[in-house]
């Protein structure tokens, strides 16, 4: 297909492409545009309980942001969210890469078994996956404590995983990694299949061992996929509202277990402070857009191609 044949100039008098875009633009403005603008405005207002009952909201400039910036509790939540996000994304990427290499190294049958298993894990709805994992980690009757307890010298009988922040977030991380590794492994495997066998054989003839081939040839060739997948993981691991909410249902409700999503939800629902909640939301949006920028640029390149 030649590039020019698809690129028709709009015919005179007919604004076809713009008309075709109207429904999408209207729904995006309604569902996303208006909320973003409302949030920016509200984040500059004092919008508490009184305003819920109709009192006009006074503009307070950047007061909400100043309050947030000087609030150690918020900083703890931000630091915890970023740490959780970075550690989980890095582990997901490492495990996903190893599994994709394993897929490429083994024969057809074990590869198919591995792929089917990863696909089933990937397809589990988040809420259903959470209930299973909470059951697996159950203090008294969970299979994980039972199996760990069988290891000689380990006493995990009735160990409560959700009762301290460290183990709570370790469990959250394990669950998120379990759900996200399949996407990473399949994407990188798709990249690996593009690496030509001739190049690898040539390198082998030149005396490069497995390790050298990985660092010298395979890794540089799949670097673009790895970069994009890592970026998506970072963005997705910031939005773990469902997972944290359900783990908190099963464990503690205290603020030490909040990440950004649940923190905003709490600000909005329990303290009814929409001004502050909006300010934190804007922070989340800003982090996401900053992270997304490189991803969007790479997709745009694809659009121009």
């Amino acid at each position: 297909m030649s590039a020019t044949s698809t690129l028709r100039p709009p015919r005179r008098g007919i604004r076809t492409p713009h008309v075709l875009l109207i429904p999408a633009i209207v729904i995006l403005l309604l569902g996303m545009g208006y909320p973003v603008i409302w949030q920016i405005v509200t984040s500059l207002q004092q919008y508490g309980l009184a305003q819920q009952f109709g009192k006009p909201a006074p503009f307070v400039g950047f007061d909400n942001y100043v309050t947030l910036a000087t609030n150690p509790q918020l900083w703890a939540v931000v630091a915890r969210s970023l740490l959780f996000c970075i550690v989980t994304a890095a582990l997901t990427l490492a495990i996903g890469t190893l599994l994709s290499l394993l897929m490429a190294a083994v024969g057809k049958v074990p590869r198919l078994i591995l792929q089917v298993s990863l696909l089933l894990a990937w397809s589990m709805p988040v809420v259903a996956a959470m209930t299973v994992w909470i059951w697996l980690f159950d203090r008294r009757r969970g299979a994980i404590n039972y199996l760990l307890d069988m290891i000689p010298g380990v006493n995990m009988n009735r160990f409560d995983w959700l009762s301290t922040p460290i183990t709570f977030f370790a469990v959250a991380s394990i669950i998120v990694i379990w759900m996200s590794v399949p996407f990473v492994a399949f994407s990188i495997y798709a990249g690996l299949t593009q690496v030509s066998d001739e190049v690898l054989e040539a390198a082998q003839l030149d005396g490069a061992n497995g390790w050298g081939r990985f660092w010298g040839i395979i890794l540089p060739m799949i670097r673009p996929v790895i970069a994009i997948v890592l970026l998506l993981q970072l963005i997705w691991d910031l939005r773990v509202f469902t997972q944290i909410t359900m783990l908190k249902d099963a464990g503690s409700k205290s603020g030490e277990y909040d990440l950004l999503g649940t923190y905003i939800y709490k600000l909005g629902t329990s303290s009814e402070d929409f001004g502050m909640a909006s300010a934190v939301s804007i922070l989340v949006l800003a982090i996401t857009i900053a992270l997304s920028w490189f991803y969007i640029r790479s997709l745009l390149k694809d659009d121009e191609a």
Partner: protein
Amino acid sequence: MSRRLAKALLGALAVVIALLWIFPVYWMVNSAFLPTIILQSFIPTFFPVSGTLSNFTGTLADGTFFSALGMSVAVTLTVVLFCLLFAFLAAVAISRFRFRGRKSFVIAVLVVQMLPAEGLFIAQYKMVASVHLLDTVIGVSVIYIAAVVPFTIWMLRGFVAGVPADLEEAAMVDGLSRFGAFMRITFPLLAPGLVASGVYAFLQAWNEFTVALVLLPSGSSQTLPLWLRGFVQASATKETDWGQVMAASTLVAVPVIVFFLIVQGRLTSGLVSGAVKG
């Protein structure tokens, strides 16, 4: 060590990892079929040899599952239908025409696609509440369509661009109108793309939790994910009945797993298209 032995060992490793990874899914189904008395023992039962359907009948007994199912089906159908329609029109616009504002639109779509519900639900709640659409199919659907339409446009764009415009023009030379050529030639070729995008929209709407939690606050209008969470919470006030919870999870998960397997390949390539093609 010979190469064949190494390959066999790696193959064995792959199978072990596969078993580990699938274990939670297996455990869900296994527990769903085990009677409560067995699940309450402190020694887990790894195979449902004395299986029973009582957990499923217990889960379905109070009828709340079916009202949540109804709500989920209504929301999902609305989202899939409007998403496909809106995204299809937009995809035709951006892949068949060059016009002013095209690039801005594409960038806007890509940015919007990344915005997390966690950063917007406060405003979406206020907006939907102010027009009295909390607890309605319309309220939650509008937000879902806006969230899902960007990636759907992106997916369909590739399919529309993949149908050569030359084909359409040939049909027009043969006497079909422009619209006729599009409907008779291009549209059938797009069917796989529409199916893939439709299933993507289905999965998003069916699984979504965060926005539903905020926009469907009353118990009577819950979608399935909210119902499942409520089911666990209600069960936990007594001794959690894990058999019933797992039966409920299985019921929610099965349709998703089936549909997911249909689109999985396109989903991966859509998300990392530029990178894999290199």
